[in-house]
């Protein structure tokens, strides 16, 4: 059973003071996230990531479509016992101490009183805040608040955790700790849906990613498959200057360094390139597929949709 399913889920806002006009915050979104999966929801700021999360949390209501979480309709209040949510740039009741806040949220989530104390202490230790438990949140740094945010999202031991930009505002050590925490939650079998615009985090953590921009889902799948869609390129290294003209005839630009030439070509030109190197009496050093980083993939996706838009405008 998928942990999250949406069917043409969309959100439109009416904007303007007198004459209301529609603004599409989220185009019809259909996606599915399996149980136990870490799903990265990627997109630049203002892409529609938070809108999607708010729709799933029922903080805003859809203009169309539907969704299911852990097999229950989004409107089913009982499903919220099974989910945890960390909003973007969380702000908590700063008159409370970390311990009081977590106790409050545990109570709201229906955790029994006798279990709460134990649960609160365990979660505080897990996010590395046992020494600050009795400090009011108004005295917390941004990084500490983010940890409290994660703590409140897992205090009731949910099956599915939604994290909106969990690493934003954190220093490299903090990011690494959050990353380790997400990894350990995954190892416990939790499903994690997290949005981010920090691509390296998604790259290290995600089983699958979805890329959203301007309210529309642009691509979804296993990162390696998606990268292949964009990439499909190989890097060839060889020795010998004779093959250079043949390679450049294939459209590649050879770079020479210390007698070794390098070129990156589309996969379909690999055989022709090998033939050209042999014909030029060159010696092949290595042939390797080019691994596209998520950042390159991301930019490629965004660029291609920019081109699509230009075409639409031209039409």
């Amino acid at each position, binding site marked *: 059973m998928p942990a999250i399913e949406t069917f043409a889920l969309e959100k439109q806002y009416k904007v303007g003071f007198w004459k209301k006009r529609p603004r599409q915050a989220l185009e019809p979104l259909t996606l599915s996230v399996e149980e136990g999966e870490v799903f990265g929801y990627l997109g630049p700021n203002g892409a529609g990531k938070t809108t999607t999360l708010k729709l799933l949390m029922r*903080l*805003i209501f859809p203009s169309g479509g539907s969704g299911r979480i852990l097999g229950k309709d989004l409107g089913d209040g009982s499903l919220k016992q099974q989910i945890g949510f960390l909003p973007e740039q969380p*702000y908590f*009741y700063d008159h409370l101490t970390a311990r009081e806040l977590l106790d409050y949220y545990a109570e709201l989530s*229906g955790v029994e009183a006798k279990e709460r104390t134990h649960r609160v202490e365990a979660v505080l230790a897990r996010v590395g805040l046992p020494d600050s438990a009795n400090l009011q949140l108004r005295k917390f740094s941004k990084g500490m608040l983010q940890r409290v945010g994660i703590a409140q999202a897992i205090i009731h031991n949910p099956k599915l955790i939604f994290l909106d930009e969990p690493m934003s505002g954190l220093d490299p050590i903090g990011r690494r700790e959050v990353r380790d925490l997400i990894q350990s939650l995954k190892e416990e079998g939790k499903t994690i849906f997290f949005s981010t615009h920090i691509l390296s985090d998604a790259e290290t953590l995600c089983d699958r990613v979805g890329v959203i921009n301007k309210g529309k889902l642009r691509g979804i799948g296993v990162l390696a498959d998606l990268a292949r869609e964009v990439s499909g390129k190989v890097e060839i290294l060889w020795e010998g200057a004779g093959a250079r003209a043949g390679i450049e005839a294939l459209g590649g630009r050879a770079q020479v360094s210390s007698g070794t030439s390098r070129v990156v070509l589309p996969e379909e030109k690999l055989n022709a390139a090998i033939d050209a190197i042999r014909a030029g009496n060159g010696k092949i050093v290595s042939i390797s597929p080019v691994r596209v980083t998520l950042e390159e993939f991301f930019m490629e996706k965004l660029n291609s949709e920019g081109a699509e838009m230009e075409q639409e405008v031209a039409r």
Partner: protein
Amino acid sequence: MRNRIRAIAFNTFREAVRDRVLYNLVVFALLIVGSSLIFGQISIGVERLVLVNLGMTAISLFGIVIAIFIGIGLVSKEIEKKTLYTVLARPVHRWEFIVGKFGGLVGTLTVNAGFMAIGFFAALLYLTHRFEPADGYLLVALYFIVLEFVLITALALLFSTFSTPLMSAVFAFSLFVIGTFAEDLRGFASMSTGVTKIAMETVSRLVPNFAAFNVISQVAHSQAVPGRLIFYNTIYAIVYAAVCLAASVLIFERRDLK
């Protein structure tokens, strides 16, 4: 369900208690009670009258100010600061949140009024040296003040569900002022004719009738408050607040938390 409402109410109470602005208001209110004592002492022959009028009015006004001041932010502040997101992402119904917030603020105001009343009665005892049976009517006046808090909190909460804090404050305070003159509006309506009469009659019935809750002058003169008025005021406050809460829930249930 009850646990969740209780938890939200207690958190609202705790937030208000830890808020320094609230302390300032309470201290200020106590100062007013103290100064009414001084005024009482220099008012030869009418010390009790002056003390009761000033002290009770201070308790009422400061309670109203606190009710509006906190009430207008009960929902809007939580949306603005996004604290609401982590609450509603849990198995908490939106109506439970509204009822919990309302209960928390009314509880806070009642406790505050209680503390101010202790100060007031201490001042009264200092001035008159002993309590009289007629002083029991002061408790009725205090009860009516708490009912006023219930009304104004419900109104402030209602405005808070759809408006900005500033506008909510303007609406709530305006209604408080108009409601204080509700009896005069009714009198004006009875003297008018045609459309004016209908309009005035409608407005005077719709606005909360705060005038009916003000028996301070009466109890200051040691006059009894009829049991019927206590009964009607209680029912009126409960029904009016319930309607405001129901409207708040209806609005809030449909609201997108952008």
